[in-house]
């Protein structure tokens, strides 16, 4: 007979295993946060843990599509996700988010009204805005002396090999649609066919595609112009005001990154506490200090310094209205194919 380990040993082993797993199972003692990279200051996360004892596991992604793919794949049960508006819209339509309990979120009064009840979540049932940004043009005015007012100026032949753009097929196509005068969410075969020759010309002049940190190549002097996230432009301007930010005259859109609780979240209570913490003016200000996107929290904006509020990339002057991305169904694949094909053609 094969000697079996004594039952006492087995019980002991199970007990040890149980002890090891116990902290993992305790509800609302931790939050699995799935958010953009370069978006949460460490001090903000640590401040919450210090105050509440709730640990935050911050897992990052680099594009809204990547977030969606990993969230749908299962794996981790996320308690909070941070999709951009058009991905949030798709999640809401597919009933993949948990409605928020506003009795636990009195701080929502701090959010400026123009950032509530937007197209992606018209009843504001599922999402809270985190940060907002436009997408626009950065110019190194020490190297580029001519005035740049729009996308046609940016992609002109004289700047060939001096341009960085975000590595995002939809952003590129949207820029082309603006120049052609089409609405940014009308993605169809005809409009893409018209955009194609324009994009083919532009893409020959682009030196670098980078969504993670387009500011790096501008700072390094490898390129002199960019079509980048407003928050990246704001950090460049704060570093050196020679980096001017231009909202393209042909048209510009803004994106809203929101916080939401996905179906299947295990720590809904703790997630609400973290959301309420983020709504606090001083916490939201601390986020703006490190990541100077457009802060939708009006009370937090009051706390910003005059220099921070004067940053043209964070708070574009004037009162232009910006479009937002809507969820694309099947047509999304056409965009990806077009850009892959064009990248390949050069």
């Amino acid at each position, binding site marked *: 007979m094969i000697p079996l380990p004594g039952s006492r040993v087995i019980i002991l082993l199970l007990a040890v295993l149980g002890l090891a797993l116990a902290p993992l199972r305790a509800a609302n003692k931790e939050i699995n946060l799935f958010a953009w990279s370069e978006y949460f200051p460490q001090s903000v996360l640590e401040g919450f843990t210090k105050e509440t004892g709730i640990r935050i596991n911050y897992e990052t992604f680099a594009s809204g*599509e*990547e977030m969606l793919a990993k969230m749908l794949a299962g794996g981790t049960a996320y308690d909070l996700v941070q999709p951009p508006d058009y991905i949030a819209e798709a999640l809401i339509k*597919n009933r993949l988010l948990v409605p928020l309990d506003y009795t636990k979120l009195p701080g929502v009064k701090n959010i400026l009204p123009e950032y509530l009840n937007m197209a992606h979540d018209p009843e504001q049932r599922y999402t809270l805005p985190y940060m907002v940004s436009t997408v626009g043009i950065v110019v190194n005015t020490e190297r580029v002396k001519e005035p740049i007012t729009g996308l046609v100026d940016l992609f002109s032949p004289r700047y060939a090999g001096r341009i960085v753009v975000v590595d995002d097929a939809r952003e590129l196509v949207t820029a082309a649609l603006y120049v052609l005068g089409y609405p940014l969410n009308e993605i169809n075969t005809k409009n893409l066919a018209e955009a194609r020759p324009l994009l083919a010309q532009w893409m020959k002049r682009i030196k*670098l595609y980078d969504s993670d940190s387009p500011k790096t190549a501008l700072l390094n*002097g490898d390129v002199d112009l960019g079509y980048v996230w407003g928050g990246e432009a704001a950090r460049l301007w704060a570093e050196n005001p020679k980096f001017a930010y231009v909202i393209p005259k042909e048209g510009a859109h803004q994106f809203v990154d929101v916080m939401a609780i996905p179906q299947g979240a295990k720590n809904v209570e703790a997630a609400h506490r973290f959301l309420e913490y983020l709504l606090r003016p001083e916490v939201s200000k601390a986020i703006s200090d490190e990541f100077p996107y457009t802060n939708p929290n009006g009370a937090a904006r009051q706390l910003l310094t005059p220099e921070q509020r004067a940053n043209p990339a964070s708070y574009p002057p004037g009162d232009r209205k910006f479009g937002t991305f809507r969820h694309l169904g099947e047509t999304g694949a056409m965009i*990806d194919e077009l850009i892959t094909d064009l990248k390949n053609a050069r």
Partner: protein
Amino acid sequence: MHALADTAPAHGGRRAGVVAWLLLAPLALWLLLFVVVPMAGLVVYSFCQRDDLGRVVYDFSWENYARVFDPIYLKILGRSIGYAALTTVICIVIGYPVAWYIARQRSPLRERLLLLVMIPFWTSFLIRTYAWIAILKSEGLLNGLLQFSGVVTAPLSLLYTPTAVVIGLVYAYLPFMILPIYGSAEKLDNALVEAAHDLGAGPIRAFSHVIIPLTWPGIAAGIMLVFVPAIGMFAITDLMGGAQVPLIGNVIQNQFFRARNAPFGAALGVVFTLLFILTYALAHRRRRATTA
């Protein structure tokens, strides 16, 4: 292969015993869990479709395979093979003399030189790639040096070019070429080279007729270790090539995340893998034909 089969009986019978299977079990399990099962999943996915969120829908379709053979993707595959082949050739040209030199040294020095080849692995691959960005960027170390010494007046545009991609690839894979060649060169009996000289072979003839054939197993292993992974590499093209020109690795990665089209990504992956198996089988058959 032949030698192994011939000597095996002397070591206790042809039939693999229970012990042998037990010893093999961890490897077999590992292969099953992390190669066979994922590969099977990939094959299943490749015949599926996606819904508008990008979730896999289990409806049978040939569509993904039809798309793989679209000229767009064939061209990308061709370019990837070109980059990988160039990388492999450069790795052999640089790596062979290094490996040969190290193998010919006396013991303590030899181990130290070998250590130098391996030291870069102690740092994360991504950090080493970022270091190259610091070297090649237009206000970087290399341009600074060239301008300071007066070789060039304006900074050279090195980063975000195909050249930068090849530099990155060669840098990443060079040790994988040096180590197997070293292994072969170290075992090479110097008496054979001397015999070649005694029989009247000059240095070139001795090299091409004696040294190369005897170190060929190392070169062949190096080619497999460099060429195959270099085709699928995507991080270097993104970071050092500026994501301008897609290689097949980038396209596959994009399908799984940005484009959220896992079935198409899976089809690309399956075709890609079949291609490797085919190449390997052909190479193997030719080698057997030449040794037989």
